[in-house]
Every structure is written in structure tokens, then in C-alpha cells.
């Protein structure tokens, strides 16, 4: 075809239109790209609870039937327990290669010493498995709080035969090696209850130990309503449980919904509640602490005394 000024003009305008369409398509695709990823974030394991605010939650609150906690399934690689700063190289030495944990969990049972080499640590569980099964939160009217959070659950630790028998430990009059391990662990692990060790049928000679875990954590400090909000409180911890050691911490904010008989707490803006790793929400019910029943109950450090009672413990 012979190109005339008219056909040339129409070709050019067609080309312009095509290029315009291409530009619009590209812009549309970019927008779609953003939408695709933005709208598809992982769903939280622990959805936010209500944040209706209400009166300051003065009183005592506990978990109970129908009132649960929710923690994210985090995973933090366990550190090498055998050496302080074991993951840091000495000068001029290469960084140690990343490793899995020790099959023996730092416990090796010897023939000449039926106890282990060293085990001043609780048998190590996967951090992600821990859930807050019991909680007691106390707010007073003077801006002080105490949060007693107990990690509970049933866990297993599996010691291969090479760890319990490979270094000389043998069945003897005091019982089989697994019984010896059980006795040893019961003495070393104050947070593990109902420790029971048996041979793993899949690995004769080994010991699999079951624990009911009960780890107290939390702390006490001051709390206040975040200025400018009606549903967010900030907790400033000054002492850590269970030893009540002084330990200042970053302030932890939480949204709340106090409906009188129930209190819902959610870490604000994705933060963890009370700075406890993984803890996102607590759905609590109100309770009454009895400081005159002659028994050590919730919130009491002794019989009818302690944080929740008018009387301090001697």
C-alpha cells in the first residue's frame, strides 16, 4: 500500500492508541500485583478480641472454661546450652555452622556417675509448643497490676540409647536406666510434674520421658490508660515472676474490653501481651480472691497473704 499523509496519520493514531492501551495495561497490572500480595497475608492464629474499652478493669481475672488464651506458634532455635555465648566465635575463628540441637539435650548418663554431666536446665521443649493454660491478672485501683501466667501442657523428651547407655550407665539394683533418668529429672526439673520415663519401643535402650509442664511467668508493675484512648492500657513491668526480681521492661500496650464479668485483652497493634513471646490474647473472667479462707489460693504468695491480699507475706 502506498502510504499517503492520511493513512500515515491514521497509522500513527492507531499506534498511539495501542501504546496508550499498553501503558494503561501495565499500570493496571502493577495495581493488581499490589492487590494480590496485600490482600493475601497469612491469617493470624489469634484473631483480635473485642476492644470496646469500658471501665478500668480493677479486680481479679482468671482464665476458665470458655475463656481461653491464644498464643502464636513461634519457633526460636534453642541456644547451645553447653557454653555461654556458644554461638559466637572466638577471635579469628569462623562462626560455627548452624546446627540442630543436641540429641542428648545436654544430658549424658555415666556409669560412674549415674547423674548427668550437667543439667541445670529444664529439659528443653520446643518453644512453639507452649500455651498459657492458667492465668491470674490483678488490677488495683491505684494503678498497680500483677499478672501470673502459667505455661501448661504435656510434653515429651526423647533420649536415644547412646545418651543414656552409651557412656556406661546400666540397669542396676536401683532400677532400669529409664527409672534412674526419671528420678534424676524429677529432682532437676521443678517445672515438670508427673515425669515418667519408659523405653521407647522403637529404639530399645532409649528413654522417652513424659512431662506435665507448669512454668510460671509474668510479673507485676504499674498500668495506666493510654492518653487519648478509651480502650488501650499500658503495662510497665517492674518485677518478674516467679522470683519477683526487679526487672524493668519495655511498656506493653493492650486493647481491652471490660464487660464487668469478662475482660478481653489483646496485644495492641500486633504486640505480644505483657511482652510474653507469642501471647496475643487473653479472654478472662472475673473472680474473687478469698484472703480469709485459711488456704493459699490464687494471687496469694502464702496463706491469705501476698499481692492480691491486704496482708503482705512475712
Amino acid at each position, binding site marked *: 500500500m502506498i502510504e499517503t499523509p492520511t493513512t500515515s496519520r491514521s497509522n500513527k493514531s492507531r499506534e498511539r492508541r495501542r501504546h496508550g492501551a499498553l501503558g494503561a495495561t501495565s499500570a493496571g497490572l502493577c495495581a493488581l500485583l499490589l492487590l494480590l500480595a496485600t490482600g493475601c497475608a497469612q491469617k493470624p492464629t489469634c484473631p483480635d478480641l473485642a476492644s470496646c474499652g469500658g471501665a478500668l478493669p480493677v479486680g481479679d481475672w482468671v482464665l476458665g472454661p470458655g475463656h481461653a488464651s491464644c498464643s502464636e506458634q513461634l519457633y526460636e532455635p534453642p541456644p*547451645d546450652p553447653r557454653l555461654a555465648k556458644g554461638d559466637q566465635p572466638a577471635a579469628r575463628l569462623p562462626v560455627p555452622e548452624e*546446627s540442630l540441637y543436641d540429641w542428648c539435650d545436654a544430658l549424658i548418663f555415666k556409669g560412674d556417675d549415674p547423674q548427668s554431666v550437667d543439667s541445670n536446665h529444664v529439659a528443653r521443649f520446643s518453644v512453639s509448643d507452649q500455651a498459657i493454660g492458667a492465668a491470674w491478672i490483678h488490677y488495683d485501683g491505684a494503678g498497680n497490676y500483677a499478672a501470673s501466667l502459667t505455661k501448661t501442657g504435656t510434653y515429651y523428651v526423647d533420649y536415644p540409647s547412646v545418651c543414656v547407655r552409651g557412656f556406661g550407665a546400666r540397669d542396676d539394683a536401683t532400677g532400669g536406666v529409664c527409672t534412674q533418668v526419671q528420678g534424676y529429672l524429677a529432682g532437676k526439673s521443678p517445672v515438670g510434674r508427673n515425669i515418667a520415663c519408659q523405653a521407647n519401643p522403637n529404639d530399645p535402650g532409649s528413654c522417652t520421658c513424659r512431662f506435665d509442664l507448669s512454668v510460671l511467668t509474668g510479673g507485676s508493675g504499674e498500668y495506666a490508660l493510654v492518653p487519648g484512648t478509651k480502650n488501650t492500657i499500658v503495662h510497665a513491668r517492674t518485677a518478674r515472676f516467679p522470683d519477683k526480681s526487679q526487672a524493668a521492661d519495655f511498656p506493653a500496650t493492650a486493647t481491652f474490653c471490660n464487660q464487668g464479668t469478662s475482660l478481653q485483652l489483646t496485644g495492641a497493634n500486633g504486640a505480644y501481651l505483657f511482652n510474653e513471646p507469642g501471647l496475643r490474647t487473653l479472654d478472662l473472667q472475673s473472680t474473687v480472691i478469698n484472703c480469709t479462707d485459711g488456704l493459699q489460693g490464687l494471687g496469694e504468695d502464702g496463706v491469705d497473704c501476698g499481692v492480691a491480699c491486704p496482708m503482705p507475706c512475712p
Partner: protein
Amino acid sequence: MKHRALSAFAISIALFGAHAHAQDDDEDLAATPGKASDAKSGDDGKKSDDTKADAAKSTAKDEGSAKVSLSADAKSGSASADATADAGPGAEVVPQRPPVYGKRGDWAITPYGYARFDAIEDSTQSFEDGIQPNLIQRVGTYRGDHRRTIFTARDSRLGLAVGAPTYQGIKSSAQIEFDFYGLVPTDARRHDSVVFGPLRIRHAYLKLETSVVDVIAGQYYDVFGWNGSFYPATVGYLGVPAEIYHRNPQLRIEKKIHAGDVELTAAVAAVRPGQRDSGVPDGEGGLKLTYSGWTGIATPGFGRPALAPLSVGVSGLYRHFEAPAFRAEPGSEAVHTNGYGVAVNVLLPVVPAKTVEDHGNALTLTGEFSKGTGIADMYTFMDGGSRFPLLPNPGNTSPATVYPANVDPGLVTFDRNFALKTVNWQGFVAGLQYYLPIGGGRVWIAGIYSQIKSDNIKNLTPFASYGGIFTKMEYIDANLGIDITPAVALGLSFQTVKQTFADVSPATPVFGAVAADSPNALGIPGTGGVAASARNNRGQLSMALFF
């Protein structure tokens, strides 16, 4: 002092110049008609075994090098003069390096590659550019709950394909190809690692084709998985999770047998070992059957569509591992084990196409099934999180002894009885690509589903590290590609990938109560809850110009 330094510098330059000249001379000698190489091959033909004659020839060659060089210089000088005379005064003279043999025009030297841009939006902060099988960040963590944006041009490629003139029936060629995913220093800033993009070798090999067998020597696609022949189409990066996607330095022998439209390719290769200190190269082999009477269109990744015949491939890999015994002082005690893998690949043109120019309505299925042990590296950087365990420290020594691993992680580890074991993996990849009947197939859609899992990685991992390994990984993508021009492609992709970790949530606790003092019977460790998992979603926009 200064003068002395200057003189030393001058002498160094002079010596360096002389050395460089000497190298040039050698090259000229080799490159010149030489008649040296012709004569030598003639000698070879005559099977001259007279060592004295060889030695004499060698001496003559050495002595003659300067003369040859000079004459070559003179020759090139005169050629230049001729060229100048021919072109007329003032014309630019382009000096040319003489070919190694034959005429310059008989050598095919073709640069190729593409410039590519990728814009990626991830829902977590888990990955670099490609979806590699490293651990996805979990929900509830900062990196698991926040997005990441990646803009990169590092997947651009540059290559050179070289074809030498056929010599005594031997057809020889070579290929060198780079991208920009070279290793970056560990202390490099993010900006530098992306914007500087150091070079990385993808291919560097030579190929000899004879009437008997073909030989490939150098870094090239692995035979295992018949890399390069069965790739699915995707805008995302290859290899996708569960796909065998690997290149290796190797010495490979191939034989092609034709019978009508059917071609059978058999290949065996000695390959860089998965563990250098095993002392034994990996062995790979495979058979590939193609039927060119039934062809379709296949696009490897985000490449260019090409005619692809109906193909089926089977391949295998065998490797050896040898590591120090798992103890503080292993002496020279070694423990051994072996790894292997098998793979089956298929490329099925469901709706065939006749030409690349018009492949509208073509539909092609690609599939791969693979199974093996100790072969995690074949799946592009995969290790599943597996590592060697910490060494027990019965003597309570400080510092604690570290196991001197001599194998890359993820291939082997020590089990609960300190025996060296390989990690098992089984995967499959299914891909479908359809070319819409628009503009001869210039618009295409494609999707992939893939899955890989291990049945023993959990058993090979101590309890406390369960959260650091995954036992299963699933990947799905959906892609749209548009050829803006025959050389420029635009692609849009959505990719979702999920990992299932080895740790499980505890059974729901009885809220409000701590553990009761009533021991129960032992259960099965590591079970009873819901396995933790994590997912990343990705949107990707890519553009590339192929040349």
C-alpha cells in the same frame, strides 16, 4: 630511593610487556596456520611414535616461535596495510584476532541473552528473589506478618554461543552464560547486593559431536531430571519448589539414536560430587525418548516459546558420602553412606502446534516426579532446615567441641544413634500452559502445582529443633504472559507456597488448671497436635527483552 623504585617499576613493566608478548606469540603460533597443528595432526594420523622426532619437532616449534610470531606480525601488518589501501585513506581499521583455525567466517559466535525486570510483592519477609525452599516466616512474627517489595534486574542474562568449524568430522561448540546472582559479601548492604549484582556462571562448557557419541565437558544442566528439557512455564523463577533444577560441572557422554520421528537419547555423566570430600564423583544417567511427529509449544519458565516434541525422560543419580565419625576426636574414623535419586519427566503436547510463529490454541502439559535420598541440593538450595546436630559434650569441655562437618547441610545428618543417614525427599511438579488464539499465541496462561515432602527428616532431627525443619512444601502459581513484540514479553503471576513444619501444637490445655498430679501412659512423641505451618503469597510482574 624514589629513583630506585621508579626503575624497579619500569623494569617490571618491561618484563610484564615481554611476558605478555611471549603469550601473544604462543597464541599466534597456535592460531597460525600452522601448520604446526596440521602437521601435528598429520603426524597423529600417521601414528608417528618416534619420540625423538617428536622431541625434535617440539624443539623446532619452540625455537621457531619467535620467527613465526614475527612473520605473523609482519603478515598482519601487511594485511592491515592492504586493508587501509583498499578502504582508502582515512578509513578506520579494525584489528582482528586471527581464528584458532579455519576462516573467521566459519566460526559462529553469537551473543544472546535477555534484559529482565521483576517487580515482586511478597506477603511475608521470607524470600530473596526466587521462592527458594528456605523457611517461611511464621504468622505472629514480625517478618511473617509484614510485606516485602523486591525490584530487581538480576535475572538478566548474557551468553555467548560459539560454534567452531567442523574438523575431521568433529563438530565442536561451546557456551558461556552468566546471570547476576553471584555471591555477595556477607557485609554487603541490601542496596549493593541488588544494584551491583555480581556475575554468576550458569553455563560454561564445550561440546564435541561425533558420529559415535557426543561429549559435554564443563558446567551444564544435570542429566538428573533431564534439566533443560521439561521445564514448566511460569513467570516466577525456576526452579519452583519440588523441581529438580540444577547445573553442575560434569563430563558427559551422550548418544542419540534416530528411527524415523523417534529419537532416543542416552546420557551418562560423571558429575561434581555432592560432597567434595567423599572423593568420588556423582554418577548420573538417563534415557530420553522424543517423538517429533507430535509437537507442541513449551516455554521454559519465562523464556521464549519453542516447538517441543512429545517427550518422556527417566534419569537417575548416585552419590557417595563419607564423613568423620560423630565424636569429638574421630581420628581418621570415617562413616559412609550413599545417596540416590530417580526422576521421571514428561512433556505432553495435549493440543499440538505446527510452528512457533502460529501456536494459538496450543496446550502443553509438563510433569516431573522425583524421589531420592541425599539429593536435596538438586532442588535448588533446598535443605529443609536439616543440619548436623550438636556434638554431645560428655567431658564438659570448654569450649565445647564442634563437629567438623564436611558436607553441605541438608544432604546427610546423624540420627539418634549417631549413624550417618541421608535425608529422603519425594516431589512432583505438574504444569499446564495454554496459548490463547490471539495473535498467533502471543497471550498465554499457565499454572503449576508442585509438592515435596520428606518421610524421615523429622526422625533425623532432635525434638527441640522440630520448629526449624519442614516436612512438606506445596506450591501453586497462576500466570499470564503477553508478547508485546516477538522479543518483548510481559508477565503477571500469583504464587502461593506453604510449608508444614515438624513441630505440632499441644493438645488444647484445660484453661484455668495447671497439670494435675496424675501421670498418664506415655503417648507417641511429637504427635497429637496440629502441625505448625506458614504461607507466603507473591504477586510478580516481569518484563524481558530477548535477543
